[in-house]
Structures are given as structure tokens and as C-alpha cells.
């Protein structure tokens, strides 16, 4: 085995789990009338609040099938700006009584339940946004220059990364699909009991909830060219 072959094998070993974990986790089988069971105890608490307060009837059990005029929470700016229920909580408690078919007021929810609910909604949103944004599409190739602007500006990528250091040659390390997947959601793909996400993962999850498709295309074009 040559040194080059050995390196290639290690790279393959690193990439294969990334490619296999995603689909398998998306295809979790265990489900009930409230949707798929959540991957951690804390998220399952949030799912309990979500389902027993019948949020899923209007917003969908994975947020992507909103009905009866309800907001699509995968696109809601309010949810995108929320931190642990600071935006979601007041709205859920007050309800939206003046809608055509009113959203009920959930005044009896405790502060802890609001936090659990909000974290579960964010988890569902991250899953949905990951599926949406990582889907290979016929979208036009991204704009490198716009990607650079986002990297150094609105995305705040530069506060943790450098294209001259940790991201140097990243375009040669990963193919486009893998690069997009790593950009959208650094491992692990779903939360696991006993494993707290790193600060970097938390920041990426926040970005994941708020990227536009163009942001992702542009960033991929910019980083892919490094």
C-alpha cells in the first residue's frame, strides 16, 4: 500500500460514515400518531408537549405539512430568531385568537415546558431545513463573490473559521455534496443523549435554520474553490 493509497483510504473512511449516517437517521422507523419519536430524552419531552397540545394537527408532525392556514414553521422568521422559547413562548401562551381559525392560547404551559417545546420545534426545523437545503437541485451554481461576502459578513463564518487555516484546500478535500452536508450540519447529524453539542455545532444549527438556498449555493461555490 502506497502512502497516497493509505491517505485516500482514511479519507474514504471519514466520508463513508457521513454519507451513511444521514439517510439512516432520516429514516427512523419508530413512530406513533404524533410522528417520529425524538432521539433524546429531552427532545422527547418537547415532543410530548408538541403532540399533547395538538400542535401537529396544524403545523405538521415534522413541520413541513402545515395545514388549516397555520404558519410553516420551517420558514417562520420568529422561530428562526427564537432562543429557547423567548419568542415562541409568549406567542404560544397568548395564542392567535384573531385568526380565521384561532390558534388557542396555552396559558397553562410551564416555563420548562415552553423551553422543551421550543427546543423540539428547533430540532424539527433543523431536520427539515437540512433535508431541504442538502437536496441536490438544478439550482444555478452559486456566486463565489456573494459567498465570500456572506462568509465575512452576515454568516459570521470568519469569527470561527479561516480560509487560510482550517478551511484551506477544503474544496479539494470534499466533493460538493459532502461539503454542503458538512457546512449545513457538522457531525453528529442528530442529537444524542449525553453528548452536548459544541459551540461550533450550536452556531451551525442556528445558521442552518436561517440560511437561504442562495446562501448555501454561494458559500459552497466560495469554499469549493478554495
Amino acid at each position: 500500500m502506497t502512502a497516497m493509497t493509505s491517505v485516500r483510504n482514511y479519507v474514504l473512511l471519514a466520508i463513508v460514515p457521513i454519507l451513511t449516517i444521514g439517510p439512516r437517521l432520516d429514516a427512523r422507523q419508530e413512530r406513533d400518531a404524533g410522528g417520529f419519536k425524538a432521539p433524546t430524552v429531552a427532545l422527547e419531552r418537547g415532543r410530548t408537549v408538541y403532540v399533547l397540545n395538538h400542535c401537529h394537527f396544524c403545523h405538521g408532525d415534522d413541520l413541513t405539512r402545515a395545514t388549516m392556514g397555520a404558519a410553516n414553521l420551517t420558514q417562520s422568521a420568529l422561530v428562526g430568531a427564537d432562543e429557547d422559547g423567548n419568542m415562541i413562548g409568549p406567542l404560544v401562551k397568548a395564542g392567535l385568537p384573531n385568526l380565521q381559525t384561532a390558534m388557542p392560547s396555552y396559558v397553562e404551559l410551564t416555563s420548562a415546558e415552553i423551553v422543551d417545546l421550543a427546543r423540539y420545534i428547533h430540532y424539527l426545523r433543523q431536520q427539515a431545513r437540512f433535508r431541504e437545503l442538502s437536496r441536490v437541485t438544478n439550482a444555478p451554481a452559486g456566486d463565489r463573490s456573494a459567498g465570500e461576502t456572506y462568509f465575512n459578513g452576515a454568516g459570521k463564518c470568519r469569527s470561527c473559521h479561516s480560509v487560510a487555516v482550517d478551511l484551506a484546500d477544503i474544496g479539494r478535500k470534499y466533493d460538493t455534496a459532502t461539503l454542503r452536508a458538512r457546512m449545513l450540519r457538522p457531525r453528529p447529524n442528530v442529537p444524542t443523549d449525553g453528548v452536548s453539542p459544541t459551540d461550533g455545532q450550536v452556531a451551525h444549527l442556528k445558521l442552518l435554520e436561517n440560511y437561504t438556498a442562495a446562501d448555501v449555493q454561494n458559500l459552497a461555490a466560495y469554499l469549493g474553490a478554495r
Partner: protein
Amino acid sequence: MNRRDLLKALAGAPLLFARQRPTVTTVNGVVFGVETFSFHDLPPSGDPQLIPTIIKSLQILGIAECEIMSGHIEPFASVMTGWWVQSRRSPDFPRLREEARQWRLSVPMTYYRDIRRRFEDAGLRIYLYNVNFNETFTDAERERTFEAARELGAEGFSSSTVLSEARRLVPFVKTHNMFVAMHNHNNLVDPDQFATPASFETALAMSPLFHVTLDIGHFTAGNNDAVAFIRQHHDRIINIHVRDRKRNNGPNRPFGQGDTPIADVLRLIRNNRYSIRCYLEYEYGSFRPSLDEVQTCFDYCKRVLAS
């Protein structure tokens, strides 16, 4: 009769024998039905298994009649008929709404007759057709929808509609001699919505063929008194939707855990022999299949009426 005719006659015989006369499900004299919205885990609109699943669900529950949502009859979801104003903001809405309109105007009436036959063959009936009339309907569409309801065997409509649309429906109920029962929600701000006794009374004055589907859960969530309203207007109420919500726009809860006076209402109807049908509507949260929860709702009502 030759052999081919005989075989043809025998092939049709099981259907003839299987067809049962639609019955009425009563509990201590109170008639029960189901709003098919209660079956949350049905196949999607247009799926060939949708109607068979509804029929099977009603048979399992032992409930002979239903109020069937238009999205369970038509091959597109109810949302495409324009009731939810929020849904009209979708860029696809105009195209999909027009497709729905063209389907309604072109589908042969045998389509509805066939659905009616499938219910009747199972000993069931569609008592009410739930269509949410609104200003996106053309008159031609309203006309065809009334014809469709008749072919389905429905006595009339239940409709989540608004007062301005009710005015447009006056000539149609008269021409077809078919009632529309207005269904309420609990939006107390928009004066066009059905949510208060006054909003119902305004519609009832428009036509003797306008009636009420009183959703006692929404009515309670809007801080109205369902018992008082039923006492006053029982002769104009076709059916009630039985659900339990908390007051002050509170959430749906399992029967007996909200603020809705379900027990008082059911006993009022029983004791006064009001001809008001009681339709179960399951909408609280649960991890169990909806059919199990509808059964739980029905069992609660049975216990109430036994005492």
C-alpha cells in the same frame, strides 16, 4: 335467460344482499355521528383507500352516519377550496384553485353516486356534506356543489363559512330546497365570522333553510354559553360538534377535561328530545391512533347519557 345472463345476475347478487338500509345510531335517544375530520391518519385526498378507510372506521365505531369533509370526497385537500385566507397567499394557490374549480364543473355525477352507494352498501350514510363555501366559489361551482351533495345522499351542508358568503347562498338553498348549517369558530373580532349568538341569528334571519352546526367546543372557547344557545335555538340546530375546549380561546382537551359543558348539553338534548344530532369531533393531542381516540370520545358520551 341464457348462461351468460344467469352468471351476470348471480355476480350482482351478493351486492344486492349486502346492501343494508342505512341505520341511525342512538344512545338513549340521542343520535350520534362523526365529523370525518376526526380521522387524522387517513390516506390523503384522492387516494383510492380514503373512502374505504372512512367506511371501515365508522363500522368499527358502530356509528352509522357522518358529516364528510369535501377533502374526503374531492381529489384535492379542503385547503385548496380557499377557506383559509392564509393559504391564498401561496403563489400556487390561483392555479390549484382553478384546477379544483374545473374538476368540480366537469366531474360526472356518477362519481358522487358511486361514493353514496359504497356507504349505503356498508349500512352507512353521509348525512351532511361539509363544504366551506367562500368568495372564491363561482356561482357555477356553488350550483354543482349543491348537485353533488344531493347525489351523495346528504340532507344538507355543514359549512365553515362567513356571513357575506351566506348572503350569496340564499338563492341556492331556495332553488335546491337544501339547508346549509353554519359552523362556528371562535374569532370574536371579525364580524363576518360565525362565533357568537348574534352572528348565527343574523344568518338564521336570511333564510328558513339556514341552520346551525354548533361547535360547542369553539363556542365555549369564545366564552359563549352553549346550553343557553341550544335552549333558545334548538329548532334551528341540525347538529352539534362535540369537542372539549377551555374557555378564553383555550386548547382542545380530552372529553371531560376542558370547560365545554358536554355533559349538560348531551343531557339537555336527551331530556328535551331535541332533534339535534351529536357529531363527535376529535381534535385534542394524543399519541394513539385517531380511531382509538374517537372511540374514547364516544364512550365518554355514552357514560354521560347513561346517568
